[in-house]
């Protein structure tokens, strides 16, 4: 997987005392195409503190364009921001 760090729009569920669970996200490719992805499976969730920035890293699996892909989403806690971290 390679770092892409692309900002994405996410629909996530927030439950009591639990980490947010991403449900679906969308982003625009460089060509301008809109891509929407449902998060089919969350494989792992890890807390990271790289460069002193608190983040949650989700390793997920989804079907993108009829192909099963593994990728990572990142939630930057202090900035309430999601990004497509690695793909």
């Amino acid at each position, binding site marked *: 997987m390679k*770092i892409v*760090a692309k900002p994405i729009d996410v629909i996530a569920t927030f439950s009591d005392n639990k980490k947010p669970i991403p449900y679906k996200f969308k982003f625009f490719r460089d060509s301008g195409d809109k891509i929407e992805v449902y998060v089919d499976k969350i494989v792992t969730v890890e807390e*990271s*503190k*790289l*460069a*002193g*920035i608190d983040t949650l890293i989700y390793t997920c699996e989804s079907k993108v364009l009829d192909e099963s892909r593994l990728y990572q989403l990142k939630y930057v806690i202090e900035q309430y921001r999601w990004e497509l971290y690695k793909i």
Partner: protein
Amino acid sequence: MTVMHVDANSAYLSWTAVDLLEKGYPLDIRTVPAAIAGNPEDRHGIILAKSIPAKKYKIGTGESLYESKQRCPELLLFPPNYDLYLSCSNAMYSILQEYSPVIQRYSVDECFVDFDHCEKRFGRPEEAAFEIKERIKRELGFTVNVGVGNNKLLAKMAGELKKPDLVHTILSQKELEEKLWPLDVRELFMVGRASAKKLNKININTIGDLACSELVLLRSLLKSHGQLIWEYANGIDHDRVTPNDEVLQKGLSNSMTIKYDVTDKREAENYLLSLTDRVAGRLRRHQCKASLIGIGVKTNGFVRYTHQIQLPFFTDDTTKIYRYVCSLFEECWKGEPVRQLGIRLSEFTRKDEYQLSVFDIRQIEEDEALNKVVDEIRDRFGQTAIYRGTFANTDMKPLEGGINDGNYLMMGGYKQ
């Protein structure tokens, strides 16, 4: 006593590198000639930190961008991000807190850790040091050097031995003689350019030479400083690791380099007012009053002069300090274009321990109440929530001086 000195390797640069990599930047800037530098348009164009490959081009911290670009045209430059640096520093500090309750933040990128009484829990100090180093690398993404010594001085000197990403120890006289004594005397903490020059003249070239020389000779040459560096060369230092809030501060100062050369007196006074507001606010936060006020002026020709006044009373009132600052400026300024201005306060007393005067006690109380309200408003709603009318509708900032608008950790670990 066992002390550890934890120091981030090329701190600003490696912190920026980690952040850039996380944002998908294709290159690790630690592996190419790169530097963090201020904005030349604001006349802050100096190198703040450089990568190890940049060191090979003899690029030094503090030199101008023009000089370094000439030496290495392909040098990559990045602006500083002080919020990031503070968050990296805080993260490093919170890891260290797991190892010892007594930590001194010596600056934004270095800490002293008192490791006494911690061996039972964490094992031998060198093992713990290695663990700390590895944890910081794994969890925070940057490398540190850890020096382990019998006191702060030896820990710091050990940490400086070879970089990056290493643990060094100086725990015995033998290690001191083997590792420290062959080094150039300039490498010793507290030996600067001027002292080194004097020492070289009497054929003291290494730290070992200094340690073995006669104390009387050094005292006659460098006075009490001679004794200090002789003790340091012999590994003697009785300073304890003191948590920052217990360190007694002796002076406060703020300065600023102005974007253009100021020639107008009124304008210069406005800059001085914004500096006074900052420094007096800091003084009040420290619960102190000062009796010595000094100003520093640097002209466009890089000539720097200072002027100070000892007051017969103590004060922490912005307006009162500003009045003296203005009269000092008027006395020493000869009308040349001004590049940099600075204000310094010292000779402190505690806020509740000063001599009252019969004549202006009412005035003092009124001023104190006003300052208190201003400080409280600023604490609650931001530093620029309330400021003086003279700054309204101008480009000038109402509070000047300090890095990142005062939200930063300075040398010595003081919060501004």
